[in-house]
C-alpha cells in the first residue's frame, strides 16, 4: 500500500489502446465541433482510423505475458487483447453499415461517432477490468453512451421511449450489481478480483458467515444477466431493439455482448470460480429459460428487429450453457459462440440496414418478400445468415451450437442438451420463415438497394465468412480455447 502515491509510468503500455482511444475521442469530439457541414464525413473516417489504430495497438499486445497494473485493478492478458481486437473489428464493420443508415435517415451527427467510441472505451475497460470498481466504471461508460445513442433519434417517439426504458431498467440493474459488489466487498474486504478469488477459494462456503457471499453472487449474476439480456431480465431487449434506430440496434446487439461475457468471466470465473457450483445452478435456469422463451416468443413476431431480439435471447441462453459446464473447454465453447453470434448478428442487421432508404425503414419481415428476385446475391447472404443462426451445417452457427452441446453433454447434462436442441429446432421455424418470404413470396414493394459499394462489399465478406469459417472452424475454436 505504500506505493499508493508513487506511480510507475513504465506500466502504462499495458493500457496503451485505452489511452490512445481516449485521446482520439477528445480529438474527434473537438474536431467535429469545428467542421462545417460539407466536411462532416470526416468524423466518420476519423472514427474508423482511430478504431483501426486502437485495434492495431491491442493486436500488438496479444501474447504479452499477463500484466496487472493500476494497483491490481487493470489486467492485460490474452483474453483482454483478443476480445479488444474482436470488439474493435466488429465496431468498425458496424460503423460501415451504420453510415449508410445515418445518411438515409438524416441522423448523421458527429456525436453519434463520439458516443460509439466512448462505449468502445467503456467496453475495453470492462474487458480489462480486474477490480469490481473498474468493471463497474467500464459498464457505466458503456451504458450511458448506449442510452444516449438510442435517444439520438429524438424526433422518434419510439426511440426516446426505448432509451428511457433502457435507462430506467439499466439503472435498476446497475444498482443491483453495485449492491452485489458491496456485499462481496463487505465480506471479502477487497474489490480486487485476485483478492476475492483468494478469499472465495479459502472461505468455508457452507458456513453461515459466508451466506452474504452467496447473496452478493445472486446480485452480480442478475446484473450480468441483465446486460446479456437473459430471461427473466430480458424485458428491455425486444422493446429497445425495436425502438432504437436500426444502426444502434446493430451495435447494441453485437459488441456489448463481448464485454458482458468478459465481465462475466472476470467476476464469476476469475473471481468467484470457487463458487462455480453455486452460480452454475442459476445459470442453468436462466439459460434454459432464455433458450425456451427466445425460441418460442420469436414465432409470433412480425418485426424483424424484434424477432432478432428474441433470437438474441436464445443465443444468449446457449452462451450461458457453456458456462454451466464449469470446464475450460466449456468456457472456450461459450466464447466461440460469442464470436460466432456476433459475426451472424452483424450480418443479419447489416442486411436489414441494407434495405433501408430515405423515408423507408425496412424492419418488417414482410419487407423481405421477394428479395431473391431483386437482389439474388443478398438474398443468398441472408439465407446463409439465417441457416447459420438456425444451426444448419456447414455454416458456422452449427459448429457453435455443436461445440456447446458437446461440452454440455460431456459435462453430464444430457437433459439440458436435449432441451436446448428441441428449442433450437423450434427456432429454426422462424429463421426459415424469413427465407420463405425472401424466396417464395412476391414483393409488394419496390426494393432497390441504394447502399454504397463499401457497405455491400463488407457485408458480403461478412456473410461469406459465416460459410468459410464454418468450413474451416479450427482456428477460431483453438483461439477461443486458448483464452482460458
Amino acid at each position, binding site marked *: 500500500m505504500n506505493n499508493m*502515491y*508513487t*506511480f510507475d509510468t513504465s506500466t502504462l503500455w499495458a493500457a496503451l489502446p485505452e489511452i490512445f482511444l481516449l485521446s482520439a475521442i*477528445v480529438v474527434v*469530439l*473537438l474536431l467535429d*465541433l*469545428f467542421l462545417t457541414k460539407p466536411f462532416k464525413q470526416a468524423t466518420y473516417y476519423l472514427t474508423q482510423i482511430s478504431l483501426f489504430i486502437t485495434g492495431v495497438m491491442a493486436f500488438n499486445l496479444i501474447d504479452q505475458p499477463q500484466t496487472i497494473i493500476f494497483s491490481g485493478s487493470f489486467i492485460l492478458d490474452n483474453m483482454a487483447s483478443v476480445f479488444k481486437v474482436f470488439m474493435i473489428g466488429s465496431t468498425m464493420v458496424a460503423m460501415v453499415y451504420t453510415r449508410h443508415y445515418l445518411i438515409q435517415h438524416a441522423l448523421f451527427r458527429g456525436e453519434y461517432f463520439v458516443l460509439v467510441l466512448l462505449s468502445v472505451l467503456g467496453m475495453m475497460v470492462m474487458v480489462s477490468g480486474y477490480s469490481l470498481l473498474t468493471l463497474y466504471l467500464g459498464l457505466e461508460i458503456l451504458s450511458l453512451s448506449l442510452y444516449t445513442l438510442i435517444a439520438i433519434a429524438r424526433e422518434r417517439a419510439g426511440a426516446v421511449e426505448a432509451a428511457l426504458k433502457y435507462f430506467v431498467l439499466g439503472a435498476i440493474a446497475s444498482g443491483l450489481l453495485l449492491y452485489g459488489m458491496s456485499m462481496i466487498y463487505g465480506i471479502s474486504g477487497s474489490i480486487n478480483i485476485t483478492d476475492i478469488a483468494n478469499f472465495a477459494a479459502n472461505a468455508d462456503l457452507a458456513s453461515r*458467515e459466508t451466506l452474504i457471499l452467496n447473496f452478493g453472487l445472486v446480485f452480480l449474476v442478475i446484473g450480468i444477466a441483465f446486460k446479456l439480456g437473459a430471461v427473466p431480465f430480458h424485458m428491455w431487449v425486444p422493446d429497445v431493439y425495436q425502438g432504437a434506430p436500426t444502426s444502434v440496434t446493430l451495435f447494441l446487439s453485437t459488441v456489448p455482448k463481448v464485454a458482458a461475457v468478459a465481465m462475466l468471466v472476470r467476476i464469476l470465473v476469475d473471481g468467484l470460480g470457487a463458487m462455480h457450483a453455486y452460480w452454475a445452478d442459476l445459470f442453468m435456469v436462466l439459460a434454459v429459460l432464455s433458450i425456451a422463451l427466445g425460441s418460442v416468443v420469436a414465432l409470433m413476431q412480425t418485426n424483424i428487429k424484434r424477432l432478432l431480439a428474441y433470437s438474441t435471447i436464445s443465443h444468449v441462453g446457449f452462451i450461458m450453457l457453456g458456462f454451466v459446464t464449469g470446464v475450460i473447454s466449456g468456457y472456450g465453447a461459450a466464447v466461440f459462440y460469442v464470436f460466432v453470434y456476433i459475426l451472424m448478428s452483424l450480418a443479419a442487421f447489416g442486411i436489414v440496414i441494407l434495405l433501408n432508404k430515405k423515408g423507408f425503414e425496412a424492419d418488417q419481415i414482410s419487407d423481405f418478400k421477394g428479395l431473391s428476385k431483386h437482389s439474388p446475391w443478398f438474398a443468398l447472404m441472408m439465407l446463409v445468415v439465417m441457416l447459420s443462426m438456425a444451426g444448419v451445417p456447414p455454416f458456422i452457427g452449427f459448429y457453435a451450437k455443436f461445440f456447446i452441446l458437446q461440452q454440455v453433454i460431456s459435462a453430464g447434462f444430457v437433459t439440458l442438451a436435449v432441451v436446448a436442441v428441441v428449442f433450437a429446432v423450434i427456432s429454426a421455424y422462424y429463421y426459415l420463415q424469413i427465407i420463405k418470404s425472401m424466396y417464395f413470396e412476391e414483393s409488394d414493394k419496390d426494393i432497390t438497394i441504394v447502399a454504397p459499394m463499401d457497405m455491400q462489399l463488407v457485408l458480403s465478406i461478412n456473410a461469406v465468412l459465416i460459410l468459410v469459417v464454418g468450413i474451416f472452424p479450427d482456428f477460431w475454436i483453438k483461439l477461443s480455447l486458448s483464452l482460458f
Partner: protein
Amino acid sequence: MLENYLPIVVFIMLGLGFGAGPMLIGYLLGPSKPDEEKNSQFECGFPAFDDSRMYFNVRYYLVAILFILFDLEVAFVFPWAVVQSQLGWFGFIAISIFLFLLVVGFIFEWKHGALEWE
C-alpha cells in the same frame, strides 16, 4: 455479525423518535378547533394565484445539470487539494488530465450553444 449493526438500528430509532415524537405530541395534546377565519390568509398574505408546482423553463434544467457537473468537479478537487503536497507530480498530472477532459466537455457545450440563454 449482524449484532454489530445494533447501534445503527438504535440510532435510526432515536432519530425517528426525535423527529416524529414532538409533532405527535403536539398533535395529540394541543387543542385543535379550526374555523373559516383561522384557515384564511393572515394579514399581509394573499390568496395563491397559481399551483405551487410551477413549470420551469427547460433552460433552468440545463443550467442546473451543468451546475451540478461543475459542482461535483469542485467536490472532487477539494480532497485532492488537501493532500496535494503528498501526491506530488503524479497527483498534479492526474488532476490535470481530469480537468482537461472537463474543459473539453465545457468547450463542447459552449460550442453547441448550451450556455446561451436565447
